């Protein structure tokens, strides 16, 4: 028995010795593709590019509703500790909004180097892929410079040589303007290599490149111009801060890039105006109409029945009768609602009291908001309006003749009325203080809500795109750049196009265009699209608008439309039904301005918040990276 075993073993060993070692041990993996294999066919290269597209970073996105909820533009109807913290905190952390994803940049650099070497790709494909990767890299550097100021500009892959000394891999931060210059010059270089196709929204196009160029140049220009207001926000090496003398050049660049799009050289883009008879719905449609939308330029697209869907509508739909037992998270604040001007181009608070301080009675709830900018109803679901053809039920209670309020503590609660009957005393959509999912400010958000059936259910969700660049912003970029370079009449021309679409038919004259107007127009047109923080930072207004002092009602209601108007706490506007049988005002509506007692904090933007904290581990790995100013 033993002998047989020994003999067999010997045979096996002899067999192994006979193998060709090289061939036997070096096998191509069956489960992975090698670099050469991947870069041998266009669809495979495109799939890598898709991954790079998917990893773009946005400051506000439909994928996470909380990213849109801050800055006192809205109240968060959510009792989770992270969410309530938005209402309770008194300042932002220095590391808020920071980003430092050099892994992503390395992956793009790797892609560029490998695609460059690929021999099998057709010349057309290769040019477009390379241009798209450069577009994505520049867009992420743009995102970095907005948040962090100057960052190390790494444009090639780096390899460590295991020498024990990594100093050849450590690069200092570039100057802030160098990063902006990089973005602008990259867009100049690739715009001719990208397609000119107004229906191509998900991938980079010539218009997207020009729109990014225009925005980047505008940001750099305003930092240069308004940086003088905050001399402390700068570093001696100019990693933060841009010299004031560079402003005119950047403004000119911003204007010329915007004009290229406006002139149609990048495709036939225009303002969305398919529903001219209902301008509010028209404005809301910009964000949900995916077919032949001439306004959106570059979007993050989503598609139903794939994993690439988002739950923005699930989280924010009106709660009453919703397709899911949730919704109503983002409640726009009165601060934002009253900023929408009246159709005669004047600013006024919502008229809740007459000159002698008595309440104003409205027959219908919606009447309080009549005669305003159509973008108000397009951005916000107002009391008395509807979503998916279902009216919202927003009212805080009954106003009794003796001055007291009759209300309930649950959605649609019933209580005994003074006449002995029992009736519903509060809306099914609230507002009820502390009741999450209800419209606690009296408003829901409408922008980015999807009216398609099923959009509000968790199993289906929504395929609305998130618009990163759209034509209206290009017009506003042009208006701002023209205004800042002293051409107010040209600026008025661009602004009036955007305003006419919003139902503001009386055109602004050149003399009406002021810095306040520019700031205001961007705030209302681009609300909840991720512009507010960056705009307030580049105008160096953030520390004035969010100065940490409590906002009184008198302060809230005055100086509407001023650029540096304080907005530190989100206010509510609560509708009440009047109960006074036999009197003319019975069942009419009144409104009350209120501050929820959940709002205990007041936003304070410290000078150290202008540029986000660079984490200590980053700086200890690379001592050449200097600290941000004012963060000690």
């Amino acid at each position: 028995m033993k002998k047989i075993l020994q003999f067999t073993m010997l045979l096996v060993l002899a067999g192994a010795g006979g193998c060709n070692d090289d061939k036997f041990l070096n096998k191509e993996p069956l489960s992975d593709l090698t670099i050469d294999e991947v870069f041998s066919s266009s669809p495979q290269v495109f799939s890598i590019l898709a991954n790079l597209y998917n990893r773009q970073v946005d400051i506000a996105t439909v994928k996470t509703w909380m990213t849109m909820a801050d800055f006192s533009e809205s109240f968060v109807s959510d009792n989770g500790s992270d969410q309530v913290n938005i209402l309770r905190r008194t300042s932002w952390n220095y590391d808020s909004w920071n980003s430092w994803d050099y892994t992503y940049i390395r992956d793009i650099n790797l892609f560029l180097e490998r695609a460059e070497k690929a021999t099998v790709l057709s010349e057309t494909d290769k040019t477009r892929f390379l241009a798209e990767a450069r577009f994505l890299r520049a867009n992420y550097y743009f995102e970095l410079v907005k948040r962090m100021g100057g960052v190390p500009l790494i444009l090639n892959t780096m390899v460590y040589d295991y020498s024990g000394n990594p100093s050849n891999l450590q690069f200092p931060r570039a100057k802030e303007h160098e990063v902006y210059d990089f973005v602008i010059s990259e867009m100049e270089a690739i715009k001719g290599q990208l397609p000119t196709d107004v229906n191509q929204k998900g991938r980079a196009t010539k218009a997207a490149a020009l729109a990014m160029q225009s925005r980047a140049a505008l940001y750099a220009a305003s930092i240069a111009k308004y940086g003088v207001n905050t001399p402390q926000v700068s570093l001696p090496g100019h990693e933060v801060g841009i010299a004031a003398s560079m402003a005119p050049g950047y403004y000119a660049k911003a204007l010329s890039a915007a004009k290229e799009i406006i002139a149609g050289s990048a495709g036939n883009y225009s303002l969305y105006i398919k529903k001219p008879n209902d301008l509010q719905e028209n404005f809301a449609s910009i964000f949900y109409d995916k077919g032949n939308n001439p306004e959106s330029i570059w979007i993050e697209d989503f598609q139903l029945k794939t994993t690439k869907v988002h739950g923005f509508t699930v989280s924010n739909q009106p709660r009453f009768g919703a397709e899911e037992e949730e919704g109503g998270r983002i409640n726009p604040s009165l601060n934002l609602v009253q900023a929408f001007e009246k159709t005669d181009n004047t600013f006024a608070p919502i008229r809740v009291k007459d000159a002698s301080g008595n309440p104003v009675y409205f027959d219908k709830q919606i009447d309080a908001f009549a005669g305003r900018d159509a973008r108000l109803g397009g951005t916000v679901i107002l009391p008395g309006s509807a979503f998916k053809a279902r009216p919202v039920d927003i009212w805080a209670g009954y106003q009794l003749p003796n001055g007291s309020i009759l209300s309930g503590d649950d959605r649609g609660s019933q209580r005994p009325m003074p006449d002995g009957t029992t009736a519903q005393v509060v809306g099914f959509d609230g507002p009820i203080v502390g009741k999450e999912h209800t419209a606690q400010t009296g408003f829901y958000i409408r922008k980015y809500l999807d009216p398609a059936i099923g959009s509000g259910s968790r199993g289906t969700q929504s395929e609305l795109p998130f618009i990163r660049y759209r034509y209206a912003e290009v017009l506003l970029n042009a208006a701002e750049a023209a205004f800042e370079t002293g051409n107010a009449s040209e600026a008025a021309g661009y602004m009036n196009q955007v305003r006419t679409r919003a139902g503001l038919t009386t055109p602004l004259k050149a003399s009406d265009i002021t810095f306040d107007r520019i700031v205001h127009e961007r705030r209302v047109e681009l609300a909840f699209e991720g512009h507010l923080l960056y705009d307030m930072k580049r105008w160096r207004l953030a520390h004035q608008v969010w100065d940490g002092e409590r906002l009184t009602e008198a302060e809230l209601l005055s100086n509407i439309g001023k650029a540096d108007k304080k907005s530190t706490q989100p206010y509510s506007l609560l509708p009440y039904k009047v109960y006074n049988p036999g009197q003319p005002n019975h069942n009419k509506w009144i409104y009350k301005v209120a501050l929820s007692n959940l709002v205990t904090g007041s936003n304070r933007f410290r000078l150290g918040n202008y540029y986000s904290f660079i984490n200590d581990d980053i700086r200890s790995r690379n001592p050449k990276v200097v600290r941000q100013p004012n963060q000690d």
Partner: protein
Amino acid sequence: MKKKISYIMMAAMMAASFAACKKDNYTPPQSKLSGRLTYKGEEVNVEVNQVPFQLFQFGFGKVGAISSTFEQDGKFSALLFDGDYKLTVPANQGPFVWKKAASGAQDSISVKMAGNQELDIEVTPYYMIRNAAFEAKENKVTGTFNLEKVITDANAKNIERANLYINKTQFVSAGDYNVASVQLSGDQIKTMTGISMTVGVPAISPAQNYVFARIGLKIAGVEDMIFSPVQKITL
């Protein structure tokens, strides 16, 4: 019985872990450096947790600072090992001018620690709030004060606003640390003496018959405010 054994084992392990602590720890720093921010011997009052100072110890090769902040009455303290330190306030912090070296960097104070040490830091504030007096009447607090512009040369700054803050605890300033405040903007302040502000006291729960009050002054272009001393006022 099983339970009992596990309790005994837990107790034994805890005892062992406590015993182990003693062996490998250093003696803690024991020399106390303390002092206050002063201008001509008077305390400079600032906002709590907002005005930082940094201590650098020589001879360790590390670049990091020991950072902390001043208390609201300008006091500071730090427990340190004996040795040589430098103390500084980072650039653009505090409602005062900090001396600069010829190169433009922040100057520093050399501190030699050998046992406890008291050290007052003399600074030049842009403004001082003088003779702040508070009076409570009919559930309202009225604060009256004078202002002194200390820096009048090329570095002089204007007043952005003045606030009267009241709080139910002795921490009084903007943000979380007030129950009510009232504000005068820079152009409403016409004179530097006898400035007066009145704020209503809101309902405090649980009820208390006193509040703490102080005046804060925001200087244009300076992030940190300067304050008057906190006073307890009986309503």
